């Protein structure tokens, strides 16, 4: 569609529109375009298609050092805390992850750490059953830190490799709810040396610039070690992660591409960048 087009302000404007419409945001788009203009003149680029390759190269550059696998080795047990705002796909991602880990020979326990929302525990129970994982739950309305504590003890007594802690969705602007997460992290760290091994922030690909605010606040409060980006099977491109990953140096580890148990993939920067321009 770019063939034969001359490189001018109109073309560059169209490419900017693609990036902003992919939720990359104005500051990141501007930075990428400056980088591309400089390279284009340095390399005497004449063809419109080559401009798009430069853009992909520039975005890919920002992302490739920040693709990383989930850290689940060597813990006694390995503990993964899963957090994020309401409705992004935490519980579903945990089910998919448990299934994947089981497939790779790990024994997994799910900690039903959402003791607040209606039927949250029942929902996780279905996933535990589907994934072949054990589940540890407390009573509804109880202290989530108590559930994670019990889960860690159960993991040790049952010789399980990984504990994945589900948490209730919470807006990052709610200070008392952020404090609840900090307490859970302290309990985990006290019980298992070096834990949590993974603090996984779940972001929804349909989210706009607010994802940057979410990432900043969760990271500042809890030290996020990885991001899972869900719902990439929709038409949203999730471009906001380019800003998040570069600004906060956070690895993007997993992507969700559907509602079924095997709809989880490791993050692939090249595929992601290609999809931005489709």
């Amino acid at each position, binding site marked *: 569609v770019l063939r034969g087009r001359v490189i001018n302000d109109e073309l560059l404007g169209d490419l900017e*529109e693609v990036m*902003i*419409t*992919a*939720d990359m*945001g*104005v500051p990141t788009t501007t930075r990428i375009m400056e980088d591309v203009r400089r390279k284009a003149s340095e390399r005497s680029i004449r063809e419109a298609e080559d401009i798009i390759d430069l853009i992909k190269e520039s975005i890919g550059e920002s992302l490739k050092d920040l693709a990383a696998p989930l850290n689940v080795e060597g813990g006694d047990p390995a503990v993964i805390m899963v957090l994020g*705002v*309401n*409705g*992004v*796909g935490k519980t579903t991602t945990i089910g998919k992850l448990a299934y994947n880990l089981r497939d790779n020979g790990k024994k997994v326990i799910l900690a039903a750490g959402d003791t*607040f*929302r*209606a*039927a949250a525990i*029942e*929902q996780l*129970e*279905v*996933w535990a059953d589907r994934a072949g994982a054990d589940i540890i739950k407390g009573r509804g309305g109880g202290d989530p830190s108590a559930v994670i504590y019990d889960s860690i003890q159960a993991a040790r007594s049952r010789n399980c490799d990984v504990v994945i802690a589900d948490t209730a969705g919470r*807006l*990052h*602007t709610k200070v008392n709810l952020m404090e609840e997460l900090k307490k859970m992290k302290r309990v985990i760290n006290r019980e298992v040396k070096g834990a949590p091994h993974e603090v996984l922030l779940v972001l*929804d690909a*349909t*989210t*706009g*610039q*607010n*994802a940057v*605010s979410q990432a900043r606040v969760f990271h500042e409060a809890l030290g996020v070690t990885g991001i899972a980006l869900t*719902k990439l*099977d*929709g*038409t*949203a*491109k999730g471009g*906001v992660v380019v800003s998040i990953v570069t600004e906060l140096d956070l690895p993007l580890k997993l992507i969700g591409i559907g*509602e079924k148990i095997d709809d989880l993939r490791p993050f692939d920067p090249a595929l992601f960048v290609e999809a931005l321009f489709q």
Partner: protein
Amino acid sequence: NLSNRLEVVFKKLRSRGKLNEADIKDAMREVRLAMLEADVNFKVVKDFVERVSQRAVGQEVLESLTPGQQVIKIVRDELAELMGGIQSKIQFSRNPPTIILMTGLQGSGKTTTSAKLAGKLREEGHRPMLVPADPRRPAAVEQLSILGGDLGIEVYQSGKEKNAVKICTKARDQASRQNLDVLIIDTAGRLHVDEELMKELQAINDKLKPHENLLVVDAMTGQDAVNVAQQFNQAIRVDGVVLTKMDGDARGGAALSINATIGKPIKFVGVGEKLDQIEPFHPDRMASRILG
């Protein structure tokens, strides 16, 4: 925020004493940045800034002692007018039950909002029934049943039925028998590009002929809001929108994007996880929030 940024733009110009079209262009650039930052859709911003530019070169700004304030006022008024012009109440049917269909993407807040709406309508003197028409999501039926139970509102027992259309028609018949006058149907989250699920939604819409189709949208939705609104509106004619999770700090530009694209009003706003946290939509407050 935008007020401050515009004041900076106009401070530089005041020394010259007069404003011209280029100055207004600078001001519009700030407005455009503020709106993109707020997640308003790219094309919607373009159209909006164009129409506001026309007004901004008028006398009211050029002769004002505080041109920055004037521009903000014009922008805010235009925004509020765009988002607030239309009927924003639920239209009740003369032949009960009034059927309200809740639809939207995964995780947007449909189940929670269904319960909130039922509670609100009961307070206003109605006799609602909640219908758990999501046969797919793990524990979705339990979730709605618990919420309905907390409010003391009747929740249709779908039992082993997995067909959403059948669940809805049977629920409607039961509501009529029990003389309940509002049916609120909670549906499964679905992607606007999922052919099979959009067909299911159309089947529910065709069979039940709901009086209100409410599209539930997360306030933090980005540029994609336009695609979602268009596709859902094409599939089942959306009557109104509920914008959820407004208790966060998302600017909520999706509200303008949706309004500008499908022209349907935002009827309610979700402002928390508790069942009483639903409010009517205030276009002027939303306009200020989007501009930042």
